[in-house]
């Protein structure tokens, strides 16, 4: 297989000079596009963890609460979705060996995303569900841009692979979770203007439709609807996307390969089937919930087995802290899945203990599995983006730093340890319903985040102060100073 060749012919042949013909660089999108999403996501994570440190009772009290909903959406939309969006805009075209359908659309998406998420979080906090719906509609518009853009990009892929199928299916669940969220918001709003004759006709029709939706949703249990929505987002979008992408990135970073393609495919297919089953079983409060959960666990089992085989077959012995964080997060799928199975037990009544277990389950899934996975991968993605912005035009002209030289491994190690300890201590606080223990754990998480930011700043510093060195040899040194 041959990819498109690149050719540069020097039009002006002056000995010893780089000619004015500029070599062609990637058709990858401008790195400022993913970077703005990544930095937004990290800002949201900072605010979210900071809020929990100040208000640790948000992780110990029962989660059906406006402030918990606000902080959860800050994590899920502000942090996770922002990072996923930025990383997808940058990496999907690369992984699919094509170009992004529209950079302009990606740029337009950004302000819509930031304003919508910010508005949603504030509206949740003050429990203004109408405005949650309004800002949620803005979010849906942005997600629509994103899905269109990435969908068209997927359409350009030369061939469909395990990874592209996994990404595509997670995008389908993303559309589903956004629609489900809007339906939940519609169900929790009131419609005073419906039936009045003085209302602008298109608005009257829209409101009547929303009220009909709310009336329909009244058939379902409100908690069940919320839990089904949450599973669509965390399991259907983020866990599935993480699994799909890991089948590309983990072998790439570790110089390994998928060992049993059928096993990887089975994990993706079963997870999609399991997601559909879990959604319906939770929504309908079915007694078949454990079977749906087992289907997901089976999928995760195939994934875990394959991931273990990939790691064991690696040619690159050393595991950096980013990959350690990512792999640790995948290990956390085990306790999360066990908790999920236990909570799926039919006829389980909502006691105080069950409430704590539900909180622990949600906490572990969002800040344990997904957030830890993302932080781990950010150790790889952020240096790549910064390196690309600062150094990609200097390759072959000057000595550029390697990615692992851009940040301190020691800071990364301490950050990893603090985050892991923070997860464990907070989890203990949640299970014991101890606010003080939870706060201690959340402070550890904040410390882990501080170390993460410290090393991220080391990386970002290269944008301001590139660390270029001349190449050895007199002719090289001369060339390094030329444009």
């Amino acid at each position, binding site marked *: *297989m*041959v*990819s*498109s*060749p*690149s*050719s*540069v*012919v*020097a039009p002006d*042949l002056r*000995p*010893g*000079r*780089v*000619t004015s*013909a500029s*070599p*062609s*660089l*990637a*058709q*990858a999108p401008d790195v400022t596009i993913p970077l703005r999403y990544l930095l937004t996501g990290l800002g949201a994570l900072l605010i979210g963890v900071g809020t929990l440190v100040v208000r640790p009772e948000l992780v110990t009290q029962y989660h059906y609460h406006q402030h918990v909903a606000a902080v959860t959406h800050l994590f899920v939309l502000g942090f996770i979705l922002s990072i996923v969006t930025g990383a997808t805009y940058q*990496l999907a075209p*690369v*992984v*699919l*060996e094509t170009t992004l359908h529209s950079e302009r659309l990606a740029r337009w998406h950004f302000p819509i995303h930031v304003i919508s998420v910010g508005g949603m979080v504030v509206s949740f906090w003050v429990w203004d569900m109408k405005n949650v719906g309004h800002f949620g509609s803005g979010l849906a518009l942005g997600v629509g841009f994103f899905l269109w853009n990435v969908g068209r990009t997927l359409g350009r892929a030369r061939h469909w692979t395990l990874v592209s199928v996994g990404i595509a299916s997670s995008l389908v669940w993303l559309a589903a979770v956004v629609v489900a969220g809007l339906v939940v918001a519609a169900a929790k709003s009131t419609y005073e203007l419906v039936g009045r004759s003085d209302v602008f006709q298109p608005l009257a029709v829209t409101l009547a439709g929303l009220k009909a939706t709310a009336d329909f949703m009244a058939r379902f249990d409100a908690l069940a609807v919320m839990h089904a929505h949450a599973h669509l987002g965390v399991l259907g979008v983020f866990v599935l996307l993480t699994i799909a992408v890991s089948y*590309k990135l983990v*072998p*790439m*970073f570790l*110089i390994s390969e998928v060992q049993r393609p059928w096993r990887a495919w089975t994990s993706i297919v079963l997870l999609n089937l399991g997601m559909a089953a879990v959604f319906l079983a939770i929504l309908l409060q079915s007694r078949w919930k454990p079977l749906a959960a087992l289907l997901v666990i089976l999928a995760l089992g195939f994934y875990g087995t394959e991931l273990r085989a990939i790691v064991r077959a690696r*040619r*690159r*012995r*050393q595991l950096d802290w980013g990959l350690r964080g990512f792999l640790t997060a995948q290990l956390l799928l085990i306790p999360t899945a066990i908790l999920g199975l236990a909570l799926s037990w039919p006829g389980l009544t909502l006691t105080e203990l069950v409430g704590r277990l539900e909180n622990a389950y949600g906490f572990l899934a969002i800040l344990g599995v997904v957030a830890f996975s993302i932080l781990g991968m950010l150790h790889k993605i952020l240096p*790549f983006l910064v*390196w*690309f912005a600062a*150094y*990609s*035009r200097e*390759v*072959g*002209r000057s*000595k*550029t*730093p*390697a*990615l*692992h*030289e851009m940040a301190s491994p020691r800071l990364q190690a301490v950050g990893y340890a603090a985050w892991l300890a923070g997860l464990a201590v907070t989890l203990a606080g949640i299970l014991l319903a101890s606010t003080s223990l939870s706060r201690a754990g959340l402070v550890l998480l904040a410390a882990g985040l501080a170390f993460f930011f410290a090393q991220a700043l080391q990386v970002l510093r290269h944008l301001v102060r590139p660390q270029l060195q001349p*190449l050895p040899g007199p*002719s*090289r040194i001369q*060339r390094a100073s030329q444009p």
Partner: protein
Amino acid sequence: MNSQSDLPPQPTAASETSSFEQEIWNALRFVIDPELGVNIVDLGLIYHVQVVEREVHVVMTVTTPGCPMEHSLTFGIETAVLGIEGVTGVHVTVVHEPPWSPAMMSPEGRAATGIR
């Protein structure tokens, strides 16, 4: 140097390549894969170099199809080789057959990366 017959030739001694070609190989060693921190020659990414009337044709691969560094590396090759006196053009072709494997790395590359 890998002895497998399906691998493209690489220069083994100065006598087998002209000094001009040797200079090209030296220039290619200035192109570093930032993920692995090793130059692309020792990584075994360069499959073939041919000079036709002062135009340089490079056939290379990447460690994995869809490698995000591919375009940076081809850019680096173009920049490095165009800097050699007398080069009139550079043509880089990225191929995925035969696929890259650590067996294509030089002992120096393997030692620097810790790759087995």
